[in-house]
């Protein structure tokens, strides 16, 4: 039992740093660049994406023995799209403001290769339990990186944090940080730092 718990724990945590989807595998960059300029957008996006990863991993894992190999990608896409529509409608109904701000990027969760990657490489060959843990771990890793990036971009770009003014009126906003290229710089710095602390094993 202890061994199983440990294994589950490892599945859950490896997405955070060691196999972080954004910083390590450099997947899902498009949405990372687009929405990470405000912390609230980042949080909404990471919750939505994590939900989609976990539920599609679970569904794919449950259906793994019934999905024909040749059309598996198409089936995954349908499953993922279903959950993305759920997230999109939910945001539109309850958080119209956030929905408006991150607009098309919610729909584009479908194309986030992190999700497809988890379905293809893990959920399609594992039982539902580990698949949920794996999806949750990777989702947390994605959220973690989004939060880290917007923790730099929002104060520099707007002088705010979660919409509250944190830097005084003396602060001149860095417009570059609001735009996607600013995310490139911040993302690059994080990748640099992480690779220096945890060098890749050859």
């Amino acid at each position, binding site marked *: 039992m202890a061994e199983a718990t440990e294994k589950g724990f490892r599945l859950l945590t490896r997405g955070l740093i060691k196999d972080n989807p954004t910083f390590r595998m450099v997947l899902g960059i498009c949405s990372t660049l687009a929405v990470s300029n405000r912390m609230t957008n980042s949080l909404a996006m990471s919750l939505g994406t994590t939900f989609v990863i976990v539920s599609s991993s679970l569904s794919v894992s449950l259906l793994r023995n019934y999905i024909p190999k040749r059309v598996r990608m198409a089936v995954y896409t349908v499953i993922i799209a279903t959950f993305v529509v759920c997230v999109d409608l939910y945001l539109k109904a309850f958080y119209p403001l956030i929905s408006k701000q991150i607009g098309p990027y919610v729909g584009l969760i479908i194309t986030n290769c992190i999700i497809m990657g988890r379905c293809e490489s893990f959920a399609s060959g594992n039982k539902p339990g580990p698949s949920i843990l794996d999806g949750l771990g990777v989702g947390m890793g994605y959220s973690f990186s989004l939060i880290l990036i917007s923790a730099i971009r929002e104060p520099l770009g707007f002088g705010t944090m979660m919409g509250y003014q944190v830097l005084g009126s*003396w602060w*001149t906003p860095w417009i570059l*940080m609001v*735009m996607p*290229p600013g995310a490139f*710089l911040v993302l690059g710095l994080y990748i640099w730092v992480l690779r220096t602390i945890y060098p890749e094993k050859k």
Partner: protein
Amino acid sequence: MKGLIRKSLDLCYGWLEKSPLKPLKPLLNAADGFFFRGAEVTEAAPHLRDGINLKRMFIFVVFAAMPSALAGIYLFGWRALWVILISYVVGLGLEVVFAAVRKEEISEGAFVTCILFPLTLPPNIPLWMVGVGIFMGILFGKEVFGGTGHNIFNPALVSRIFLYICFPAVMTGNWIRPMEGWGGFIKYSGDLLSGETLISASLPQAGDAVTAATPLTDFKATGELAPLWDLFWGNVSGSLGETSAILILLGGLFLIITRIADWRIPLSYIGSFVIFAFIFHGINPEKFAPVGFQLLSGGLLFGAFFMATDPVSGPFTKGGRWFFGIICGLLTVLIRGVSGYAEGVMFAILFMNIFSSLIDELVLSYRYKEFRR
């Protein structure tokens, strides 16, 4: 005198070996190189072919930029000196840190970047912005690629474009008229403190200087043309080192005579610029200013002589250099005339920097077909 310097340097070497400050050895090596050492073999461009070494080469560029820098002080006040000084302190500081961490020599490329960058700035830019700009430019324009010789873009222009996009209000809408009479050698325009407490909402207002648009912005807004004579001598508003055409030409010719800069790039750049500006002015004189005015205003001459000739970020084949200059000229004319920006030199050069190795590749594969299997 020479022996004394040698002796004290040796003393420092011996002392440094034992002390905990050993990582600072590159600093001492750089000092040594200024006085004594010759060139070592380079691995990446700029390659050297004669006795002149990388250090001297870069120091010559600094010499060549001196007239423009002095003109900046004369026209816009002592504050220009602070701008240059801050650029040097931050830029060289970053360079020393990277050299110490990488255990490499300090490269003199930073000396050039740190003088060229402030010369492209508006005279009353807040001083902290200068520091931020040079920091970001050297870090992201040069060091992350591996230091001097490995950068894709001209680091001075990366610094400038960073500020240009981050703080457009300060970088484009904020110019002062040059000083009258004895000029800036006896005046300090703009307050040092006000530069630090500024916010974008209230733009810096320099002490006794009068705000004025640059000739190019003027043309874009009203179609008014500044007199050519003023443009030639530099008595117009603009960036610190960019207004005086004659002094830029002086420095540029110095670079070409000492063969630090290849004459092909400035010639093809300015030549193609003149031709295209002439053609487009003929087609649509409302959008495209006359040739003479365009040639002497804005950063064209400065860019052509000091920025486009960077041996690292430009192409190294002769044919490639011609091509590079020609397209730079065309792009500059088009950006100035058609886009929303008043000035296009920076964009044109950075844009062509992307393609410089591709251009080299094409030239080599065309010229040396048989050698390349």
